[in-house]
């Protein structure tokens, strides 16, 4: 029982990181209808930018975080401007956009392999040393992950609800035509969505560098989990995407209570399939019933 609770605690910490990446993906998808697979590349770039700044150039973690944020936003905006915008102008289908995004992901992933090697790297830091709370153990990174993602999601909520830019994004998620009718620039909205979505991946990337180390392969598994979370949560719902991330994080950790840990991915996607079958509209709609 105690082990089960410990696994659930680990699951929530990891799940919060999934939630951040998933919400970023969902913001971009909601506003632009682009299945941004290269969001995984954004995550990787942010993680390696942070790692390089801190570990190779010996700057402080705060500088690393700033550089990671800049790199992520620049990459996200560049994707929109240079890849998706020309494609959407020529009315490309969902599939072609997805494949282009996938090609972009492959390019970034392998450029990182060429620069940093395909092995994995870890950062030595006091933050990953576990703290004991009675019989339970949680590292400071885990605590920051849980607290930080709550704060960030709250910030996103305030941004969407109380700023003009946020209102524009919500309007565009509802109907892109409407946005043009009321005279808002569609491209600027898309730029904003990509910047905001990419920014959300940054804390997840930085924290997972400390929590579990980083490897070029981690980008693909992160974007898959994020896509799955979005669907478990219910496409179109940011709140659902966040909840989906936490559910998948807990499921894959608690699921290995009796199974070997290498079943983790299988369990997470098993949960996804179950949701698709039983509640295709996602958690949020399930909760409303």
């Amino acid at each position, binding site marked *: 029982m105690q082990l089960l609770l410990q696994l659930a605690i680990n699951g929530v910490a990891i799940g919060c990181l999934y939630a951040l990446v998933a919400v970023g993906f969902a913001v971009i998808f909601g506003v632009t209808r682009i299945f941004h697979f290269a969001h995984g590349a954004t995550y990787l770039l942010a993680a390696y930018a942070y790692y390089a700044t801190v570990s190779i150039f010996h700057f402080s973690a705060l500088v690393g975080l700033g550089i990671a944020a800049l790199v992520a936003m620049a990459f996200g905006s560049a994707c929109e401007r240079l890849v998706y915008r020309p494609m959407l102008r020529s009315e490309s289908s969902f599939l072609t956009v997805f494949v282009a995004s996938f090609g972009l992901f492959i390019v970034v992933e392998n450029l990182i392999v060429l620069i940093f090697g395909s092995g994995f790297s870890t950062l030595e830091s006091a933050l990953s040393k576990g703290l004991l709370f009675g019989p339970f153990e949680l590292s400071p990174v885990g605590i920051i992950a849980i607290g930080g993602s709550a704060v960030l999601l709250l910030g996103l909520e305030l941004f969407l609800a109380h700023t003009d830019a946020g209102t524009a994004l919500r309007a565009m998620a509802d109907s892109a035509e409407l946005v043009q009718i009321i005279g808002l620039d569609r491209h600027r909205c898309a730029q904003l969505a990509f910047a905001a979505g990419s920014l959300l991946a940054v804390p997840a990337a930085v924290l997972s560098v400390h929590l579990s180390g980083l490897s070029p392969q981690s980008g693909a598994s992160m974007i898959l989990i994020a896509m799955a979370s979005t669907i478990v949560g219910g496409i179109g719902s940011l709140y659902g995407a966040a909840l989906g991330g936490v559910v998948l994080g807990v499921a894959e950790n608690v699921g290995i209570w009796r199974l070997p840990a290498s079943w983790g991915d*299988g369990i997470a996607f098993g949960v*996804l399939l179950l949701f698709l079958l039983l509640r295709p509209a996602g958690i949020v709609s399930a909760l409303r019933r």
Partner: protein
Amino acid sequence: MIPYAESLLIFTSLAVILASSLNLMLGYGGMFSAAHAVFYGIGAYTASLLALHVNSSILLCVPAAMIAGGVAGALLAVPALRVKEEYFVVASLGFQVIASTVFNQWVAVTGGIGGLTGIPPASFMSIQVDSYGGYLVLALLCAAGVLIALKLLVRSEFGRALRALRDDEAALQALGRDPVRLRVATVVIAAMLAAIAGAIYAYFTSFVNPESFSLDESILIMVMVIIGGTGTLTGPVLGAVFITTFPALLSFVQIPSTILGPTQRVVYGAVITLLMIYEPEGLLGFLRRISRVASFSALRRWQPSTSSS
């Protein structure tokens, strides 16, 4: 050099089978699947296990692989097709990840990451296929067989119904056909064809492990179809040839083997993206454009009127 070219051609033929069979789902049926490597893998494992423990005859292993592949196809299709179409891709993704986990973890049957080794060469009646040339003939025959089968299928009543389903589901229902049953049949057929490629792969490499049937492979097959051009018979063949031979061409550039793999992937990732931006119709659209140039149609049509009255 010749064995190298032969093995490249064998892998190309297998890719042609995989891409063409996926195209039946994707291009004709409108079902976007990221799980095709699962059927490829199930075919390979079934054929290997039978060849190792029972008999390595093609007449036993290939049909058995097809049946196993078909069953796996039904396993994906029956539940996944109950949900909305856009979710099919995600359901297939989940199916792929779960299948990969099983391939990796069910060590007693699949050998885990260590795989199954020492698979005996294919045999047909009393002939043993043990040369590269033999496998080349086998792979080319299978690829040709699959292409012919697909051509007949697409032209048949089934194919017409399938295209009608993709373009206008309501009209099809009005005609009294069950769209779900039609889709399930399509997935099962595509999975059975992909399993043939798996069996040949197992014979040829005499080794199978989960690395060959991962999500990466599934996505690669999907990319072949889309790069080539969906919904035609030629498109996926072009895509398969391009994706298998392009990295091989790059491997003759003498760069250290440690950076060779990632460099290849950077280049083909970039090609995929550029092609999708500038030529969304795929290689087929690109070739059509070239052939319009090459047929000098503008030159031929250019007839200045000299005979003035």
